[in-house]
């Protein structure tokens, strides 16, 4: 890739935007556990944006909402209804956790679309922790709520008896693959979109293809706006589905 980029004097560094570097001090410094990095900065930005929407936006507590308050209520109602519809009434207890995940992913995705910014959700370390947290919480919750009968999730009682062990094996594999697909789906989508944007932006350096490249950047950016919202939605609704499995393990 490096040789390819050098050809024709073009400088392609589509992955540079994902490098984690300390916010203060020299660029080459070691990144320790508590170092304040660009990832830290954009996570803090996500917190501030969420607080601005959900707290500042609703400070009026108006019965007839202002514009910001109605957006906050929209987000609330959207996730609340999703949890209620997918996980059922008893899933509403976990609504704050799911709302936290949804808002964090949504705001990280959108903040990452600001030019020159950093997308925290494009990192597998972040999405893997999000997915593992969901996976572990749901698994533990399943055993606490249902005891051993939670294993009925893997024993498809509606299938013929001979097929059940095979199905159980498939179900078991698919269950453990869940956090992998859950996390890679989000990180992959965010990383691919941003890398493609950077590649198009790199082509814009060449005058001959610059109009096409800039049109491409605009088109991909529009697509990425959609992907940002959809991936947050997908992550959240899958969390709800897994939660439903934990609360009601029967097929």
């Amino acid at each position: 890739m490096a040789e390819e980029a050098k050809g024709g004097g073009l400088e392609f560094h589509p992955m540079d935007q994902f490098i984690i570097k300390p916010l203060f001090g020299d660029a080459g410094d070691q990144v320790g556990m508590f170092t304040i990095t660009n990832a830290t900065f954009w996570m803090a930005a996500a917190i501030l944006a969420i607080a601005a929407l959900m707290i500042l936006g609703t400070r009026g507590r108006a019965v007839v909402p202002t514009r910001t308050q109605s957006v906050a209520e929209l987000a609330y109602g959207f996730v609340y209804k999703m949890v209620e519809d997918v996980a059922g009434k008893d899933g509403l207890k976990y609504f704050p956790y799911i709302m936290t995940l949804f808002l964090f992913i949504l705001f990280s995705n959108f903040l990452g679309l600001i030019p020159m910014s950093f997308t925290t959700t494009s990192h597998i370390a972040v999405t893997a922790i999000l997915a593992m947290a969901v996976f572990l919480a749901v698994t533990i919750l399943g055993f606490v709520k249902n005891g051993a009968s939670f294993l009925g999730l893997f024993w498809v009682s509606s299938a013929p008896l001979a097929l059940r062990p095979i199905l159980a094996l498939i179900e078991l594999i698919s269950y453990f693959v869940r956090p992998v697909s859950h996390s890679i789906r989000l990180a992959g989508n965010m990383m691919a979109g941003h890398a493609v944007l950077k590649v198009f932006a790199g082509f814009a350096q060449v005058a001959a293809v610059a109009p096409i490249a800039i049109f491409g950047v605009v088109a991909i950016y529009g697509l990425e706006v959609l992907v940002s919202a959809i991936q947050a939605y997908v992550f959240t609704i899958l969390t709800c589905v897994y939660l439903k499995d934990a609360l009601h393990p029967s097929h």
Partner: protein
Amino acid sequence: MATETTEAAAAPGMPQLDFSTFPNQIFWLVVTLVVIYMVLSRVALPRIASVLAERQGTITNDIAAAEELKQKAAEAEAAYDKALADARAEAGRIGAEAKAEVQAEIDAAIKKADAEIAARTSESEAKIAEIRDGATAAIQDVAKDTAEAVVAAMGVDVDKAAIAAAVDARVKG
């Protein structure tokens, strides 16, 4: 830009797979999630829930009030209709009464007039009969006298009784 290129050379491949940054990211992610969870569960979500509940309550109350007012309006309309119907019935009754009274008066007047007419008619008839009788008697007298005179002029003895009988027979016939 220059520092970035040197860094890119220092970290080839995917920065996502640079495990040395994982503890940092994980630490800050956990901090972020905890802060967001606190913000949401302590402040934002209860507030929005209460706003939504309040709005729902306001809407329900307003609808109930509107329903009540509608009920009242319907009652008022029913009362109005009833009053109108009563007034109409009363008017009809009064009209009918007045009509009956007038009719009775008219009937009485007609009866009285009929009686008067009948009385006058019978009186007139009596007078006419009297006049006719008088006329008949006068005619007989004249006829007798004329007959007597005619008979006398013929030179025949006048038998008054015979002449009277003959005249009576003739007049009657």
